[in-house]
């Protein structure tokens, strides 16, 4: 085990990609299960805070410590098994997602969860139930977690397998490897009907594994996971279309979304069924224009889509997409179409560039991230989008709006240039998340709550539900050592 405590060495662990900063006494870097158990046992005895750290790519300060120690999983980075017959892989938490995806590709398999940032640790993606562009078709990380091994706050080991421990209505029993039993009351709530990464997963007759997926390092430390893989598609087409009118771009997305759902319901393979359906507004395009001078002049929006095809349906699908583009006045001549794997990657990078530029911007002006991660039910999304952009225009605030519009999920990033603008932005932001809640949406669809969105979660679920969620936390971690500050404000843990 490595322990780091000098100021130089621990700097990198005190921040994440949201630019949220913290402090701690030391960084513990265990190399295996036993060491993780020992660290937690000792910390639990001393009632010392332990913040679990992945690769620092998060956007909500989840891995940023507020005192105590950091447990960095970075040395636990083995891919233990890839089973192509039964299509699963067993990994340690610090396997880098992008490397893992490349590795399983060699077996002609695909690991679908694909948050825009590929340098994240898989452990982090499970802890936050990460999703991304391809969630529109494949669903979020949760769907792909078959088994988990978790070290609990007292150092005890918990092994979970999907389908093996289901709650009886709202009562969930857990049994650890040492034989200790927990009887957990799941709060009775209606989770939003959107993709969601806000607070604990709570549902009638739920699987225990789902409580831990998305629990943001507050219930235990993931040390091993078995993940479901799927066959790699024969071919994926990828295209970016530019629109001279924002409304046309939005309508194109909505139409493609509805068509995709219909195709899935019919289980048809020869109709439009997008893998990814992403939107970038005019500000976003201007924001990356210097990196992509080929962006046509005067465009107001761009949409990126991908779809799985095979040799027998490719032509018919291209034809259908072209009709849809024409129907919504998309500029077919200027559209970028990936003709091979390399160009497909280029288009992915194009979409990713905007997120990277926002992160650079925050660092340059030394302000914290103020970006929405809200999703609302599909039928309310149009209303939500216009509400948000009008708010920004009304307040004359710089912003970029883009995101997973196929999932009715908006990343609107406010771009403050200093602390006073940041404070002003926070007020606008509050109006936006209040609207999302009012429309039946979630305050966090994929980034999680971390430390910077605890207020919004409270607004979304209310005090009673949050206290019930906190009760689960207190049962599994009575000394409140794990993930201090994540999901719950301190007052809810007393």
């Amino acid at each position, binding site marked *: 085990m490595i322990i780091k405590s*000098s100021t130089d060495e621990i700097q990198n662990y005190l921040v994440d990609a949201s630019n949220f900063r913290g402090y701690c006494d030391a960084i513990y870097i265990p190399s295996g299960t036993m060491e993780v158990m020992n660290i937690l046992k000792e910390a639990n005895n001393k009632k010392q805070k332990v913040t679990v750290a992945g690769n620092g790519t998060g956007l909500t300060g989840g891995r940023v410590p507020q005192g105590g120690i950091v447990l960095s999983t970075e040395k636990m980075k083995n891919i233990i098994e890839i089973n192509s017959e039964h299509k699963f892989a067993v990994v340690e938490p610090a396997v880098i997602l992008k490397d893992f995806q490349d590795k399983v590709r060699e077996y002609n398999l695909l690991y679908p969860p694909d948050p825009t940032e590929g340098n994240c640790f898989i452990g982090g993606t499970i802890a936050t139930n990460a999703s991304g562009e391809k969630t529109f078709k494949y669903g979020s990380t949760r769907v792909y977690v078959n088994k988990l091994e978790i070290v609990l706050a007292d150092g005890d080991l918990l092994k979970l397998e999907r389908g093996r421990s289901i709650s009886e209505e709202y009562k969930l029993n857990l049994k650890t490897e040492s034989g200790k039993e927990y009887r957990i009351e799941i709060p009775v709530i209606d989770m939003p009907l959107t993709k969601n990464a806000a607070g604990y997963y709570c549902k009638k007759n739920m699987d225990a594994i789902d409580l831990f997926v998305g629990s943001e390092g507050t219930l235990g430390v993931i040390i091993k996971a078995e993940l479901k893989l799927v066959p790699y598609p024969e071919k994926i087409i990828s295209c970016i279309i530019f629109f001279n009118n924002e409304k046309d771009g939005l309508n194109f997305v909505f139409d493609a979304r509805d068509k995709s759902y219909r195709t899935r319901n019919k289980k048809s393979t020869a109709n439009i069924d997008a893998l990814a359906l992403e939107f970038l507004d005019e500000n976003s395009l201007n924001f990356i224009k210097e990196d992509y001078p*080929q962006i046509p002049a005067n465009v107001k929006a761009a949409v990126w889509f991908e779809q799985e095809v095979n040799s027998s349906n490719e032509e018919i699908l*291209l034809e259908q997409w*072209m009709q849809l583009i024409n129907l919504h006045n998309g500029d077919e001549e200027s559209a*970028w179409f990936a*003709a091979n*794997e390399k*160009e497909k990657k280029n288009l992915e990078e194009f979409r990713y560039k905007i997120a990277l530029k926002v992160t650079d911007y925050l660092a340059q002006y030394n302000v914290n991230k103020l970006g929405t991660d809200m999703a609302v039910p599909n039928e309310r999304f149009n209303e939500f989008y216009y509400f948000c952009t009008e708010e920004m225009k009304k307040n004359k605030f710089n912003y970029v709006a883009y995101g997973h519009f196929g999932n009715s999920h908006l990343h609107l990033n406010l771009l403050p240039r200093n602390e006073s603008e940041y404070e002003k932005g926070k007020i606008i932001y509050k109006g936006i998340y209040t609207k999302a809640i009012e429309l039946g949406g979630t305050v966090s669809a994929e980034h999680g709550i971390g430390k910077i969105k605890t207020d919004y979660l409270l607004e979304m679920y209310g005090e009673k539900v949050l206290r019930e969620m906190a009760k689960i936390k207190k049962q599994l971690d009575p000394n409140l050592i794990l993930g201090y500050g994540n999901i719950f404000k301190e007052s809810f843990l007393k």
Partner: protein
Amino acid sequence: MNIAVCVSHVPDTATKIKIGDDNKTINKAGVTYIINPYDEFAVEEALTWKEKAGGDSKITILSVGGDSNKETIRKALAMGADDGILLKDDNPRDSMGIAKALSKEIKSHKFDVVFCGKQSVDYDAGAVPQMLAEFLDYSCATVVVALKMDGNKIIAEREVEGGREVVELELPAVIGAQKGLNEPRYASLKGIMSAKKKTIEEKPAAQAENLSEIIKMYSPPAKQSGRILGTDASAVPELVRLLREEAKVI
């Protein structure tokens, strides 16, 4: 204006290359192929020239190799080229063999200009454009980063060691494109669809003997892992000493 572009079908630059069991070829399993990146600049330049020249200008894509090269020809057609010709030979050819096959075909057309990438990224010989110009008796400029038409003349800027060289050529000419010449466009959806419908003419590549032979192919030595000399300021003197005495970089 009648324009030819010669394209090469090469492993994706992101592919991890594994040497085959014969130690003379690469293991093609799992390797995806793309149009040679330098050839994309050549195609883009041809498209720009065609757009400028207007009228009944035409771009013909030529490639020497097996059936899979059609994929790369189609990619160039999707970008906007008009015709494609595959000069078929399933056996590997060296630069001379390729240049001979291309020159024979090009002679039977009346091309004003032939664009190539300055080299292809698989074998990196960088010899085909020059050989081609010689066989055709065309003027030639390679490693070209800027091009201008001036009547029947071309002004080309070439990247040379430490600077740029400006040369004047007469048409017909062979141009070897270097990165920086332009920004290749993506194929449009319409381009992709019409490229699918176009037929690619297939002809046997003219016979030519290879003049070089690959004796052995091997991977470069693995990069050695770094050394950690220490984790605080006390390690600096040793680091400076090693940089000076061992790495000899300061």
